[in-house]
């Protein structure tokens, strides 16, 4: 093991996973370990691509980082909080306050309009949508170019538009981390570009960290850092050539100590 827990606690990374294992169907004949002692740190403001062949465990990793799934063993801190011992409610609250999600394009709430989808996080928190929240949601939707589509249902929007709604929704409470799972999957090249540019623009305008799972190498090449997963372990973790260095990026694979700039 490379890191020890106290060192990790003091390192101040936004996301810090140490020796994380994840198994499914524990105790059954079909038991399978998907992540084999993975360690990864991500700092504030990074724009990270998570790539790898299907079955490599990248979705599982994203779910663990997103507090949607629990790791089997290991330690994980996000925004200074160790999550291993938290109960479901505390996890939910932490997720609420630190994470925004952009899933694949059919993951808006179909029963709600674009605007309602964006105000939903506020409704969840406060049981009502305040004027401020409404203003903020309108502003965000305008920013992503959807001023005219606010009152449309997801089914009335194109895939690219739906993803832009999802981006607005993820950012409505300005979380420190946004996780995107194949945000451009199932989109044509033009829409795909559009959505990705939106993500990059949002990243430029705030200090939010983005972690993007993709199997599109073209997209990965336009991120600042690429983490490649193969068979549940990190096979490659490097800055993308040509991306701006010193953006607060630091990377640690399972093979070496964190290189602090």
């Amino acid at each position, binding site marked *: 093991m490379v890191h020890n827990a106290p060192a990790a606690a003091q390192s101040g990374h936004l996301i810090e996973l140490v020796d994380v294992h994840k198994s499914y169907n524990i105790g059954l004949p079909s038991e399978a370990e998907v992540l084999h002692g993975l360690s990864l740190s991500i700092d504030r403001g990074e724009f990270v691509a998570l790539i790898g062949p299907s079955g490599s465990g990248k*979705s599982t990793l994203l*779910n663990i980082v*997103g507090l*949607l*799934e629990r790791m089997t063993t290991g330690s994980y801190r996000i925004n200074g909080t160790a999550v291993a011992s938290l109960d*479901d*409610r505390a996890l*939910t*609250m932490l*997720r*609420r*306050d630190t994470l925004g*999600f952009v*899933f694949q394009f059919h*993951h*808006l*709430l*179909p*029963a*709600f309009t674009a605007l309602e989808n964006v105000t*939903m*996080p506020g*409704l*969840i*928190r*406060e*049981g*009502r949508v305040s004027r401020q929240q409404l203003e903020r949601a309108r502003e965000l939707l305008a920013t992503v170019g959807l001023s005219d589509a606010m009152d449309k249902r997801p089914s009335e929007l194109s895939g690219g538009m739906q993803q832009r709604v999802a981006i607005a*929704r993820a950012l409505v409470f300005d979380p420190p981390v946004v996780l995107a799972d194949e945000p451009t999957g199932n989109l044509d090249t033009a829409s795909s570009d559009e959505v990705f540019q939106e993500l990059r623009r949002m990243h430029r305008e705030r200090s939010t960290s983005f972690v993007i799972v993709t199997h599109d190498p073209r997209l990965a090449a336009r991120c600042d850092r690429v983490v490649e997963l193969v068979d549940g372990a990190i096979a490659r973790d490097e800055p993308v050539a040509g991306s701006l260095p010193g953006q607060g990026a630091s990377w640690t694979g399972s093979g070496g100590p964190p290189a602090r700039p």
Partner: protein
Amino acid sequence: MTAWLGFETRVAVRFLREGRLQTVLIMVGVAAGVAVIAYISALVTGLQNNTFNKTLGGQPHVTLQSRDDVVTPAWRKEPGAVVFSDVQAKAQRLRSVSNWQSLLPLLEQWPGVAAVSPIVAGGGLAIRGEATQSIALSGVDLDRYDRVVKLREKVVAGTARLEPGEGIIGIELASDLGLRPGDRLLVRTGTVGETVRVTALVDLGVRELNRRTVIVPLRLAQSLLGLPGGATSLDLALSDVWAAKDMATDMRRQFPYKIESWQETNAQLVSALNAQSVSTGLIRAIVLVVVVLGIASVLVVSVVQKRREIGILRAMGATRGQMVRVFLVQGGIVGAAGSVLGLGLALLMIFLFTAFVRGADGQPLFVITLPASLALQVALVASVCGVLAAIAPARRAAAMDPAQAIRI
């Protein structure tokens, strides 16, 4: 300031609106159940009130009489003493309640007693020309008696009045003897006879009573039955009919008389009414169970269909508790909306019953109403059941792993 159930209600309503056909079907199901429950309850209440009024309308709630004469056995069975094993029961002669005049004010002050009426009752014959009918003769003080059995409300011809020499008779007896108000008849008891002028005909609701009843002033009956100054029983009306049984028990402890409540006099009616209430309760319970299962099954399907939405909401920070409540609120809404529909349906059914189901005389058989309290109670129960029905589906929704839900 967080709005109570704001998120839950908004999402629940939207989910219900999205599942249009499902929602309509389940609401109609609930409505049908509520309608059956409300209608059956109203029907049976109407039926019971009808039976009750017809039977009990002409009866006092509690009667007080002298104890029956009994042959007193030997006080102590000494060894060797002769014991009569077969004793002829005594014939019950007509006797007055002893000291009824001083008992009257005591009973009137008894808590819960609304009215007390002394009565002299005995058998006799009504004779008019060639026709003779055996009758049950009652001597009463009209005002007191009216307060006990509401006699004045039962008058169908003439005006109730009991001056000396006047009488009120049942309608069947009137037609048997060809009597109208103002006519005279001869009332005989044993060897004594007296002419009585009919002032009113009454319908007591029971054919046999209508054929036998002759009501005359107290003094007249006293002289006809040979009980000067006497009263064979004291009839009581209570402010709460159902308190009769307990009150009779209390009074028996205090007074040395034969005291009976209407429940004891009409044991068969009481058990019939009870059986009816139990069956109604059973039907209501079964319908309720069916409604609950219906709501539950539709919501279970809805939870499965809404897996992805549940996952997305959870990812956005909705707690398990919030997801549970989204589905509980759905159950409650379905129950409440179904109740409103169902109560409307019940009112329609009651209207149809009243309009089309009529007795031989063309009048409605009996009055059915849906009291507001009953409607409210049914609606409340249905809504609570809706929430209860949603518990299992809601727990299922909450137990879903958000990641699993999203992957689908």
